């Protein structure tokens, strides 16, 4: 003989029981992840020493304002221009063929060394000397390279 009822008495675990159960769960979780936890403690130490920890907490606490201010600021024309330049520059870097430029750059370096030595001298180079030097295979190779470069640069897409 049972009359319908909706009365329910919750099972309230005593404070000690609840606490004990909680601690048990935490202990287990810690033990399973010993290495990661120790590393994390180290990291927290370093953040604390460098005063970064309070800074991060404040930032997290005020994340909505911070996010809003950040995007408002970064959205101003000159900042946006800067950011866009960064993106464009990264894009530009992607188009340069460094592998092909490498031997060329080495040659330019050697050229600079030679030029450095020649810079000490004061005497004039005559027209004849200039034409004569075209016969020098080293000079001739350079001239050819420069002409090819000029040709490539002048090409229309």
């Amino acid at each position: 003989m049972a009359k319908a009822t909706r009365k329910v008495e919750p099972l309230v675990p005593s404070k000690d029981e609840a606490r004990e159960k909680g601690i048990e769960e935490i202990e287990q979780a810690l033990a399973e992840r010993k290495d990661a936890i120790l590393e994390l403690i180290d990291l927290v130490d370093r953040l604390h020493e460098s005063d970064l920890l309070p800074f991060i907490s404040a930032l997290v606490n005020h994340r909505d304002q911070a996010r809003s201010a950040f995007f408002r600021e970064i959205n101003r024309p000159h900042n946006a221009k800067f950011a866009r330049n960064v993106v464009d520059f990264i894009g530009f870097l992607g188009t340069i063929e460094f592998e092909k430029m490498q031997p060329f750059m080495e040659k330019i370096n050697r050229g600079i060394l030679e030029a450095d030595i020649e810079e000490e001298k004061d005497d004039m180079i005559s027209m004849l000397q200039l034409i004569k030097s075209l016969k020098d295979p080293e000079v001739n190779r350079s001239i050819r390279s420069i002409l090819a470069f000029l040709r490539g640069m002048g090409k229309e897409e």
Partner: protein
Amino acid sequence: MSGEMVRVIVNGTEYQASEGQNILQFLNAEDVNVPAICFHESLGPIESCDTCIVEVDGELQRACGMELEADMEINTQHEDVHKAQDLAMDQILHKHELYCTVCDYNNGRCAIHNTVAEMQKEHQQIAFKEKGYNIDDSGSFYRYDPNQCILCGRCVEVCQDVEVNETLTIDWERKQPRVLWDNDVPIDESSCVNCGQCVTVCPCNALMEKSMIKEAGYLTDVEQGTLRSMIDFTKNVESGFGPLFAISDTEAEMREDRIEKTKTVCTYCGVGCSFDVWTKGRHILKVQPQPEAPANGISTCVKGKFGWDYVNSEERLTKPLIRHGDTFKEAEWDEAISYVGKRLKEIHAESGPDALGFIASSKATNEESYLVQKLARQVFGTNNVDNCSRYCQSPATKGLFRTVGYGGDSGSIDDIATADLVITIGSNTAESHPVLASRIKKAQKLFGQRVIVADIREHEMAERADLFISPRPGSDLVWLSAVTNYIIKQGWHDEKFLKNRVINVEEYFEKIKKFTLDYAEEVTGLSKETMVNIAEEIHRSGSTVICWAMGVTQQKGGSDTSTAISNLLIVTGNYGRHGTGAYPLRGHNNVQGCSDFGSMPNTFPGYQDVQNDEIRKKFEEAWKVDLPGEPGLTNHGMVDAIHDGSLRALYLQGEDMGIVDANANYVQRGFEQLDFFVVQDLFLSRTSEFADVILPAVPSLEKEGTFVNTERRIQRIYPALPTLGDAKPDWEITQMVANELEAGWNYQGPAQIMDEIAKLTPLFAGVSYERLEGYKSLLWPVDEEGVDMPMLYEEEFHFNDGKARLFYVDWTEPTGTNEEYDLHVNSGRLLEHFHEGNMTYKSEGITRKTPFCFIEVSPELAKDRGLKDGSTVRLTSRTGSVKGRVVVTERVKGKELYIPLNDNGDLAVNKLTSSEVDKDTDTPAYKDTAVKMDLLNFEGQSPLPHNNHRFGNRQPQIGIRIGGKWKRDDYVFPGDVVREKDVKR
């Protein structure tokens, strides 16, 4: 000729293809890459986005808008093709702003994002421009952002021609076209039924589930101003789409980390829709149907798409409850289970096995049904085990057992959709089986399927029917038999079929003569012409299916009427071919499976008779006990046995029997008399209020298992959420109880239970969890090799001689109304609520639009009795009374009332229903209820709020009427621009 294999050339390579095939689908299937945004595999071509332009025989054309012809030359790589596609995409990006990283739809499946990426488009030529409309977030479950909408029309297509609710259109005439709800009203005030399919097919974030917003992304939960700054910033910084996508793709990948996608099967009706549930922790982000879902494809109704709030309800039980006097005290599992074990053991010892009764749940899994009957039979030695199919579809099963042999639908939903003629009887299909109803609505609207609806109430299907008939309540057997007789007299019966495949023909032909049209006219109130008309419709149709539901079965002659339906199908040869057969539409997700898997007083799993010695011996050997050979009590019989004192303990799994059984007052008085009552449930239901112990169970989203839908289709569910609190899956609870009684069960999971079932049950011999993985499914019978049978009776009927039987049945007159109880009460479902409402009233979005149960009254009766919308009346039957507010509607006529099932308080309809039952199966005759009415208060607010979809204003049309777009002055076909044709300016 269409379908013939022909030669075509694609990019210089020769292909064999079937003529008439859609070019885009052909190219996709051959892995020739063509972008496409508006095309959706479940919707077909819409021709609105222009991104799939290719060159066909030298002309630029939309691939999705053309069919293959012999010797066609198709080029997808021509420079002009790319130019035209690029132009089309520019038009789309003019309408849609790309801020993917901070968009909640950035989940790797945005069609715009993915197509831009695929086309390797870096810049847009036409800047984005807002359309100047506000976001519409007036609805309960989804919002529309016109400024992100690309007007692809997928949503309109799905609403008009898949769901066929006909709410959405695009107005191409206005300056800025947009998607409209009804005749341009807010979503919330429209005819929208919240099936959510428009949201499911939207290619971008224009239509989005509200549960996704500010939840799916890492950066989307910010206030509007900041969001705008973030959008502007990303746009300013990103010089091309490449970097934008690099960042947004990374963000999308990160989401995978915290968003789980789990396949499940819906629990709100017998259609068996399956879909992915997206969860983040316990938060349900959305339900995402998949085209490969076998029963429903991309379709859902409001409950399946949005009705899952109950899973996280505060009211969920999380600890076992034990009664102490008139208070339940929460307890730990050990204490509760040992108490249950002790009490059941005591009663078993004192009064014998049959003093105990067990009721399984048609909402729980097959494996859970199997364990309940195993607990009853193996552990307690009783066949007193049943389930709630007793309340609904046992009569249909009986009718099919008598005539064709299997107690299930003869074919699949595809057969219903492809029939020439569909007859529904006593089925409010559009509200009770919405996704299945949509298949019929679509077939009728687009493919000329004929639909006859027999019902006493003019519901949506009745409104849409080619022929709607409204016979007197409980008289269906008579008109069905008269139509059958007339067909025979006209010589329209299928002679060859009857000769080769049917027995009892002559005897039946002789007896059926009694059902003349004159007699039927007198009994049913239908005119002779109407019945002749029905006979002619069936005669003219190459294939006919009949779907029926509770209007047939919940009558004193429910089994007989079901038999008469099957007789009519046999006489006309409508079995064993596609597009034919008998379809009792099962009401709950697993009402079919719960019986299939053995929770029946007379059968083991797979309908193996408990009285058959050989079968019993098989189970005795497997379970190592002696088993009783006499059928046990039905659940109706159990209630009687409680009243006469012979049944002392009841073990009930997840069923609110005190509300859903007929004559609820009688049932509840029975519960009060039980010596011991155990209930497994999610909530403190009305039934569990009477329990001695309540064991907290978990819903489908928190467990593994399988369900069987109305098609006999077995499908798997997977846990999408962890179990809540200490609640456990029903199978685990049942196992704990069994083991408390030293049963020694050791199931690690439902897969193991299924393996045991398969070994013992020929019907499921080849069923295993591997064969049901993901979206795979099997329609029983399944042989040992795993071959299933989507369509029954192609070769033979399920009897030893392989032949169907004509089984003559006579009419049982319903009790009906009389002078005192002069109004007839019909009861049934509402689209948006389920059952007594324990689950769906937990959804705020549903409840705000349908807050209360109500009583539908005809305008004639309202006038006669002086009622208006909102008037409060009391209805009194011979068994009890209810009180509720009135809705005056033409859906009901004369002295008919309609009360939805969705109340467990003052308007719980089963306080009115009686203990009268179907004479063959004990199924309550719920639909044979008479009442008298007293007006309590004339004034009152309508129980149906004005924003209920029933007050909406549908706008039927076929498709999106794309011609309207092409005619606009500002539209130019991108192909014409590229080829510099003489285009309009």
